[in-house]
């Protein structure tokens, strides 16, 4: 065992852990930041959008020094059918200043963000995996790592080890996630000269664009994405694990399918795949959130299911929860109360924060994502919308009234009748609005 004692041990140097360590170290606490990767972000992956607000609260104007890719000025949504797509997009120059969000690479960003925590005094311990918690009299008093003499004691343990949280399970904050509470995402980073990216996506030097893809996931609940980085593209898809199990398909088969789509193929053509990664995304949302604190511990970020799947927001919620955990750590050290009662303060703070509000709003969504509902929403419906528009827009001598009817019938067909179409719409609206 290391002789040294810490005030706080933070497990995991992702956005949540780094934010927690930074906040606690700035508050004068003695912090250890443990990460199993060779360096923070070494093995981490995400789709690629980083938001301004929560990070800015910790590091004003961070975008001037942080390694970011492109400033997102345009967001597109594509409803895919076999060979076509209905596209919607919004572009606004106001997103440039102040920036709203950026595309990014976790291997660079996490490293930079953790370095800020190090600069504030957090002691980095990398290439070290936490294997267990030290529990005495029902209280968490430290962690066990996979190194020799690997125990480390602390007043508090902040759990930020991501979606597959070992400590979360160990402390029974939650169980193994159910297959319909997580989706499995795969992603490729595809190298392409920056001028080509700018041409193909209609962008200026530092501008970026995101495309969310609905449909062509073999009827499984899931979303695809194609984001522009400086000289690479991020193309990926995440699908509910329960669906993958049900259909016995591998996620990369879905990704390969997407790559063949004519609209996507055109954008990635000539690119060279540089990286390939897979990762789980928490999808359980509000109802799956575990208890957030106990005797000697707090849990944040993905480890606590804090992801807003509809808006692909996760890093921001992770940073927010990390900051709240760090602030709580500072506050309870003043009173030296590390009990679950003292740490209830963190749970309360999360409740009052955007994390709770947003996740609560979408709490019904989870229902829509399960089979057979999902098959309609992610399979038949995108196809039907495309077919409907094809009917409607084909100029073939038929009167417009008939065209409209035929188009509408396509949609009814999917929903199972006119009333069902209305019902489906209502259900969707409710899911998105709590």
């Amino acid at each position, binding site marked *: *065992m*290391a*002789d*040294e004692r810490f005030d706080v041990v933070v497990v995991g140097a992702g956005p949540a852990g780094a934010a927690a360590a930074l906040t606690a170290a700035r508050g004068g606490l003695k912090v*250890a930041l443990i990460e199993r990767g060779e360096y923070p972000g070494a093995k981490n992956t995400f789709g690629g959008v980083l938001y301004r607000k929560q990070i800015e609260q910790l590091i004003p104007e961070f975008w001037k020094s942080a390694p970011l890719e492109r400033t997102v000025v345009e967001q597109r949504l594509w409803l895919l059918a076999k060979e076509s797509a209905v596209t919607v997009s919004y572009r606004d120059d106001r997103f440039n200043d102040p920036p709203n969000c950026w595309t990014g690479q976790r291997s660079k960003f996490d490293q930079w963000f953790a370095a800020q925590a190090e600069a504030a005094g957090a*002691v*980095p*311990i990398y290439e*070290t995996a936490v294997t267990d918690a030290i529990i005495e009299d029902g209280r968490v008093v430290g962690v066990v*790592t996979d*190194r*020799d*003499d*690997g*125990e*480390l004691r602390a007043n508090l343990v902040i759990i930020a080890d991501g979606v597959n949280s070992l400590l979360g399970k160990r402390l029974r904050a939650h169980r193994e996630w159910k297959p319909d509470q997580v989706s499995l995402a795969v992603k490729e980073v595809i190298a392409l000269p920056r001028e080509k990216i700018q041409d193909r996506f209609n962008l200026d030097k530092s501008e970026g664009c995101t495309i969310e893809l609905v449909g062509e996931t073999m009827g499984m609940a899931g979303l695809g994405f194609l984001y522009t980085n400086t000289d690479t593209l991020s193309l990926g898809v995440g699908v509910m694990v329960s669906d993958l199990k049900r259909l016995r398909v591998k996620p990369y088969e879905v990704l390969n399918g997407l790559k063949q789509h004519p609209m996507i193929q055109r954008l990635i053509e000539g690119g060279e795949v540089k990286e390939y990664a897979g990762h789980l995304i928490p999808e359980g949302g509000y109802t799956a959130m575990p208890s957030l604190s106990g005797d000697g511990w707090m849990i944040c970020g993905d480890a606590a299911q804090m992801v807003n799947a509809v808006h692909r927001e996760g890093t921001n919620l992770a940073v927010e929860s990390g900051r709240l955990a760090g602030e709580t750590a500072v506050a309870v050290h003043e009173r030296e109360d590390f009990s679950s009662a003292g740490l209830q303060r963190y749970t309360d703070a999360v409740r009052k924060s955007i994390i709770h509000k947003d996740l609560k709003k979408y709490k019904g969504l989870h229902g829509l994502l399960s089979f057979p509902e999902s098959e309609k929403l992610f399979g038949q419906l995108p196809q039907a919308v495309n077919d409907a528009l094809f009917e409607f827009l084909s100029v073939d001598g038929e009167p417009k009234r008939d065209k409209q009817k035929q188009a509408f019938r396509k949609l009814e067909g999917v929903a199972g009748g006119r009333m069902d179409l209305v019902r489906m719409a209502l259900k969707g609206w409710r899911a998105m609005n709590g």
Partner: protein
Amino acid sequence: MHIVVCIKQVPDSKEIKIDPKTNTLMRQGVPAVVNYYDMHGVEEALRIKDKYGARVTVITMGPPSADKALKQCISLGADEGVLVSDRAFAGADTLATSYVLASAIYKAADTWGPVDMIFAGKQTSDGDTGQVGPGIACRIDYEQLTYVQQIEDINPDTGELIVHRHLEDGVERVKTRTPVLITVVTELNTPRRASLPGMLRAARYTPIVWTTNDFEELDRSKIGLRGSPTIVSKTWVPEPKHVSTDMLTGTGNEVAATLVENLFGTELKHSLGWA
């Protein structure tokens, strides 16, 4: 006993690519690692330290970012890490490198006591010469044992040691006496993993930095690019060998016969002595 280990940070060679347009190396973003062989030198020094007690000083000449490599050695149990770093050292070939490292070893001896053993790697993955080790030994007139795969015995009192050298055609058992420089091959040992207290020490450790100003007697005409007699006059990527492949077809027996016939028709007949 005072042991110095020379380590070098090198670009992770499997990640280096060639820019197809400019034919230059794309080193950007290539992660740096400690030269593979050198970690075996560190391990052997630490084993001697564990067994007999010794002070282990790790020295590297390189850019400021090489402090990461030294911290890694500290986490394993080395006592001090010295970064010999100065713009004036840049561009050194093996002759200039051995001069600076030899000077640093003298300074380490002044600072922490006479140096009995020096470990270096068999070779680096970027320089790939294996000349720096022998160069250092020659500069400071130490015994030199290269390609050591086992240290059979050390007598810390007399300084006598017996080692096994790994050669192309066999193993040589050699006896010598300190002070000695040993270059190591991977068969020597399996490097350890740092303990948690080691990681904590390394996280807080700041390597010692020596610049040109820290060496009183340094001859500045013998360091860096200026002190390097070898000049890289050009680099190029060899043209992929242009071959017109002869695809042999027919039954198994036919292709086998054709291939043998064809090969016998080449100069292989002579060079391989197929009379």
